[in-house]
């Protein structure tokens, strides 16, 4: 019961974050007149369609104009364009929630659609693929290295990891990506510089998979490099803190083998705070993914951000901001569940 309660509370507070972002963007859009422009564009788009279909049946131009004018007034009232923007707040929030943001100005989806929801949703899996694989690889390496160096404080490995962690904090993902492109794609010529598939993509499924894998190596490698240092260091610090506790000394005094002490008494206890630090690093890796995708031309939502900025496509940017917040909130909630599962104190409170 208490487990469920905790999760509900966490979920609610994340929902508040999502709603805050939604309202913040809607208020900003409304107050700056962007929402008026968005809706006006939607109205004229609909009228254009109407005119095309009606011109087949209605020959008299005056009558056609009259019908269209009536429809325009209807639409303006329907979208609330005749009233100030703040009356439309709930409506706009709902539109963003359902990604019902009309047509993009110049951007197109891979299948040629110009609907904002098509363009954004089509790229979502690519971004999720990139972030998830990078996070999983980082976590595994970070856990392994972190635990290893916690047992050998002062060693050369431990010191180099802590220096590396400090350096990677100052290392922008996009610049590192550029260096990797210059190094691996142009100097050594062993990996492709950008994109997700070769042109033309291989037809055989296994070759296709390999092709995608080869293209994913550099972006994932970049994301891992920028975050793995600080991750290992965080794990090291947490493991070290716990290994100085009395119960660990007791376990050792009982004569338990060291790897058992490490597994059962240290890592088990250190797991919840480690998840917490993963949670704290989440916004950072989301930002890192946006930049990495841009550098490597990875066709995900991050690269779409860059393209939308260059094309000045505001509805795509609104949709992307919402989608990234949603992605964050979902990822965060998964980690919260993991935290609750790992930390028995939450369960038996």
């Amino acid at each position, binding site marked *: 019961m208490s487990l469920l309660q905790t999760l509900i509370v966490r979920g609610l507070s994340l929902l*508040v974050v999502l709603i*805050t972002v939604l309202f913040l963007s809607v208020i900003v859009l409304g107050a700056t007149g962007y929402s008026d422009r968005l809706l006006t564009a939607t109205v004229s788009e609909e009228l254009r369609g109407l005119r095309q279909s009606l011109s087949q049946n209605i020959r008299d131009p005056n009558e056609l104009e009259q019908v269209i004018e009536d429809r325009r007034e209807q639409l303006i009232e329907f979208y609330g364009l005749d009233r100030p923007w703040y009356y439309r707040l709930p409506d706009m929030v709902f539109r963003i929630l359902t990604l019902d943001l009309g047509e993009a100005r110049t951007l197109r989806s891979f299948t040629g659609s110009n609907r904002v929801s098509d363009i954004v949703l089509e790229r979502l899996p690519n971004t999720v693929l990139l972030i998830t694989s990078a996070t999983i690889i980082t976590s595994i390496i970070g856990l392994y290295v972190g635990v290893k160096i916690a047992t050998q404080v002062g060693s050369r490995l431990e010191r180099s990891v802590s220096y590396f962690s400090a350096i990677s904090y100052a290392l922008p993902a996009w*610049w590192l990506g*550029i260096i990797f492109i210059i190094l691996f794609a142009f100097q050594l010529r062993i990996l492709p510089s950008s994109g997700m598939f070769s042109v033309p993509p291989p037809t055989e499924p296994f070759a296709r998979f390999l092709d995608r894998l080869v293209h994913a190596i550099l972006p994932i490698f970049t994301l891992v490099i920028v975050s793995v240092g600080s991750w290992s260091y965080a794990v090291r610090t947490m493991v070290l803190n716990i290994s100085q506790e009395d119960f660990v000394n007791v376990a050792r005094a009982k004569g338990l083998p060291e790897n058992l002490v490490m597994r059962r008494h240290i890592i088990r206890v250190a797991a919840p705070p480690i998840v917490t630090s993963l949670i704290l690093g989440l916004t950072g890796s989301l930002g890192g993914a946006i930049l990495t995708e841009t550098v490597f031309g990875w066709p995900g939502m991050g690269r779409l951000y860059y393209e939308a*900025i260059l094309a000045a496509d505001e509805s795509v940017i609104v949709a992307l901001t919402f989608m990234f917040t949603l992605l964050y909130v979902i990822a965060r909630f998964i980690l919260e569940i993991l935290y609750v599962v790992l930390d028995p104190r939450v369960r038996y409170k």
Partner: protein
Amino acid sequence: MSTNRDNLKEFFSSTSGKIGSILLVLFILISVFVVFTYPLNFGNTIWSNPAYWSDYPKSAPPTWISIFGNENVEHQIIDFTSPVDIVPISNQEQRLYSYTFNYDSNISPTFLSLSMYDVVYHDRPPTISVSILRPDNEEVLIYREVISPPRPGEEGPYIRYSDSPFRINLSGDKSVSSNLIQFVQDKSNSQISVNDIVGSNEKYIFSAFSPTDSQEILTGEYKILIKFVTNSENDSISKIRFVLGGSSYGLLGTDSLGRNISVGLLFGFPIALLIGLTTSTITTMIGTAMGIISGYTGGRTDTIIQRFSDTLSNIPLLPILLFLIFIFGPQLWLVMTILVLFGWPGLTIIIRSMVLQINSSQSIEAAKSLGASKWRIMYRHIFPQLAPFIFAQLVFFTPAAILAEASLSFLGLGDPSIPTWGQILENGFRTGGVYIGYWWWILPPGLLIVITAMIFVFIALALEPVVNPKLKKM
């Protein structure tokens, strides 16, 4: 209790503290130099003004790469301001300008251009002619032009090219090719046409016309001869500029608009420090104040501040920053404001938890029982205990602000009136510099961002044992 002097000693005893402080001083000195020597509106009037850079070679690598054996032509901007000789011819006056230089490179200049500044004449328009005397004693006429005549109804003196100079690219100009064609045909013994040589005029002017290698350059002493023929001695021209386009330029080369990258990068120093230090200082101030108030006051104030901070600190920064800057327009002060708005809550949460520990200490209880006011306790008794930690946080947050601005610029949302390292890098990236191999355009700005961020990371590392003495044991 350690004294300040001990703390300083501790700080400077670490390698990272030493490196960080030395670099920081260096960066500050460079920034001071830039602030005093650059005009305030550098971004608009110089950096983003293509006319200013038209006399520089485009996408040229740094000069020093010639050390590695790359063939190199020195970039020369030759300004003629006073004539070497004035020859009166009947009622005209011929002013002679000349410049002798030694050309020993194996490749021709990348381009040739001529500019005229501030021409004033009183009667009939003056004429300018440019020729080059080659080492083989051939004098080649390159260019001849009559300054534009008076417009109908215009009264003298007639002023020309005073707002913006008259500039002509001699390499690609067809009239130059027509002037050259006879010379080229004679020398090469072929019926080459004007259209064949236009666009590469400079190659023929410097060609050795060797029968075996058409690319061979005639090395030796060249002389530029400029004649400015006027009809009145009151006529004047303030400056004539002749440019021999080099294959490399300056310390860090140029970008595709001919902009000197090192000049732009220098301007980035004070901007980066300004962004980093201002943002982190304000963020830490607000974060600290809110944290102390929240932790010490408790009750409803505490709850409100904590709910608020929780929500704000949970918003993914880069997407919201991109969204807001896109809507409100790319302005640097706005970027800094948003970074502050979303930056302070994280610190507030930490400070609050520290204040809760201090609250129960005896010193606070003593101050309370002595009747000290709420604000006095917060300011005089709680804040000083937190001060070292807060200072470390300030240092640690500085690179975050610098990196956030750089990321934003890299995504194309940099403030166009203030060039930053991120923007220079983005220009290079968008122009395809990565794929073409303009490393001098891509690597230095990124490296400077990394070094600047590293300075503060190093200082923060060296501060850690001072702030948190428990770490010393480990």
